[in-house]
């Protein structure tokens, strides 16, 4: 349904997710001491759990699927740095907040093109996908798991 990725897809953010076209994953890191997972990756070098002195972190891929916690859409084109299109060409897109069971966290992301809010329901299973923004840069997006290829 979506155009295949070009030869060398450029991610919108370096190191935030794998570029596996079929089974992409967000990349976080995990405190070796208390197990807290961070996404985006914690870069301060010191665990944010107030009772943890952890200062060693391992890169971990996040769960590919989760439960839809809530959703909305962007009826108007967001301002820059969101890649802009002509006002007439803009199509509202949905945005999902997805709860990951293993990580016990909620991660936001746009929903894949062609899936509007009317096709979403709190509690449904969502899966991670990669799709290009208007400037061709790849970002992570959420898609209803049933709609996955």
């Amino acid at each position, binding site marked *: 349904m979506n155009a295949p990725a070009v030869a060398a897809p450029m991610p*919108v*953010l*370096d190191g935030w997710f794998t570029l596996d076209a079929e089974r992409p994953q967000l990349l976080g890191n995990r*405190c070796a001491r*208390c*197990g*807290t*997972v*961070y*996404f*985006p990756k914690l*870069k301060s070098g010191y665990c*944010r*759990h*107030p*009772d*943890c002195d952890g200062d060693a972190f391992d890169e971990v891929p996040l769960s590919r699927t989760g439960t839809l*916690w*809530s*959703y*909305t*859409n*962007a*009826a*108007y084109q*967001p*301002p*820059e*740095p*969101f890649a802009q299109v002509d006002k007439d060409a803009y199509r509202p*897109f*949905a*945005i999902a*907040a997805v709860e990951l069971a293993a*990580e*016990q*966290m*909620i*991660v*936001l*992301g*746009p929903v894949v093109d062609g899936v509007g*809010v009317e096709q979403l329901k*709190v*509690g449904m299973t969502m899966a991670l996908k990669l799709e290009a*923004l208007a400037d061709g840069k790849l*970002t992570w997006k959420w898609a209803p798991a049933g709609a996955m290829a």
Partner: protein
Amino acid sequence: MSRDIAILGVGMHPWGKWGKSFVEYGVVAARAALVDAGVKWRDVQFVSGAATIRNGYPGQVAGATFAQALGWQGAQVNTSYAACASGSQALAAARSKILSGECEVALVIGADTTPKGFLKPAPGDRPDDPDWVRFRIGITNPTYFALYARRRMALYGDTLADFAAVKVKNAAHGYTNPNARYRKKFTAEDVAASAMLADPLRLMDVCAVSDGAAAIIVSSVDYARRLGKAGAPRVAAVSTVTPTFASALVEMPDIATDSAIAAKAQSFRAALPAKAYAEAGVDPADISVAEVYDLSTALELDWIEDLQLCPRGAAARLVREGATTIGGRVPVNPSGGLACFGEAVPAQALAQVCELTWQLRGQAGARQIDNARVGITANQGLFGHGSSVIVKR
């Protein structure tokens, strides 16, 4: 009570889009507060300013700028920056100074001039800045309010009509408020007819940004007594706690919550008034009036529950029953709230305290609540800033 300070005077510059400098607004509010207090500017010993960066640049946007505009007279000065809670932090600074005996009477002041359109991040690629990241993938401020609103619909069965009812109520409250920017009554049909912004929220569900200023003269209880104002409303608590790890909600500007693997997920919004109640020794059942940060209509419902004015999930019913309308059991946003004011960031938390002061003094005119004795404010802004203030008489 030795932990209280007195509110001697309050003043505002009306909210709106006036195209003037924040300093002019601040001076109008400060002079009104001084007149209201019956305190001479030269007697003010401490100036506590609430700042916002976008008015100018740090250093200029500061308590000293207002002090200069009023006429430098050698007062001590302080500046607080805490996003939407800047005003409360400035109030907390004045309270500490007064309770420690370092000063007796202080001016707390915040003023804002706002840009047009979406609030957006400064230019330049900043992948380590969560505010830049979320705009890069298309997540704006209304996204967060809409996610919370949709979650209420799924969890508690709230409807679009419930959200619209909040707007209708606040519009009716602010209709006669001379400091409000929007003084127009709206119907549920008006709300339903406004354009969709972030499903399920429409333009009329979300507040605008405004110019405005608010100022408060506070003093020790002794000073108030000497001035013949022993009965002045008192600030009984100022809560400016940070969130506690792990965050239960995705907060603006983040794109994820903390992981709750090693720590219980906790609500920041609920923590703010909880600290204020404990500090003041006040029970939620004692509250006669609340001013809350209705950045969206649905968010007012969240705040009502965070303030423990009803059980979790019951706020929409409270609104439907009219309990939060002036004349009801516990009126919420009698000023008209952000729905009628629009947000003027460093002034807004102080404007909430001004409204409680007028209500507790019985000077709120057509908005007056019968026998208001204890009021509470609540607000939350970016980057872990928030506050809750309790005022009593």
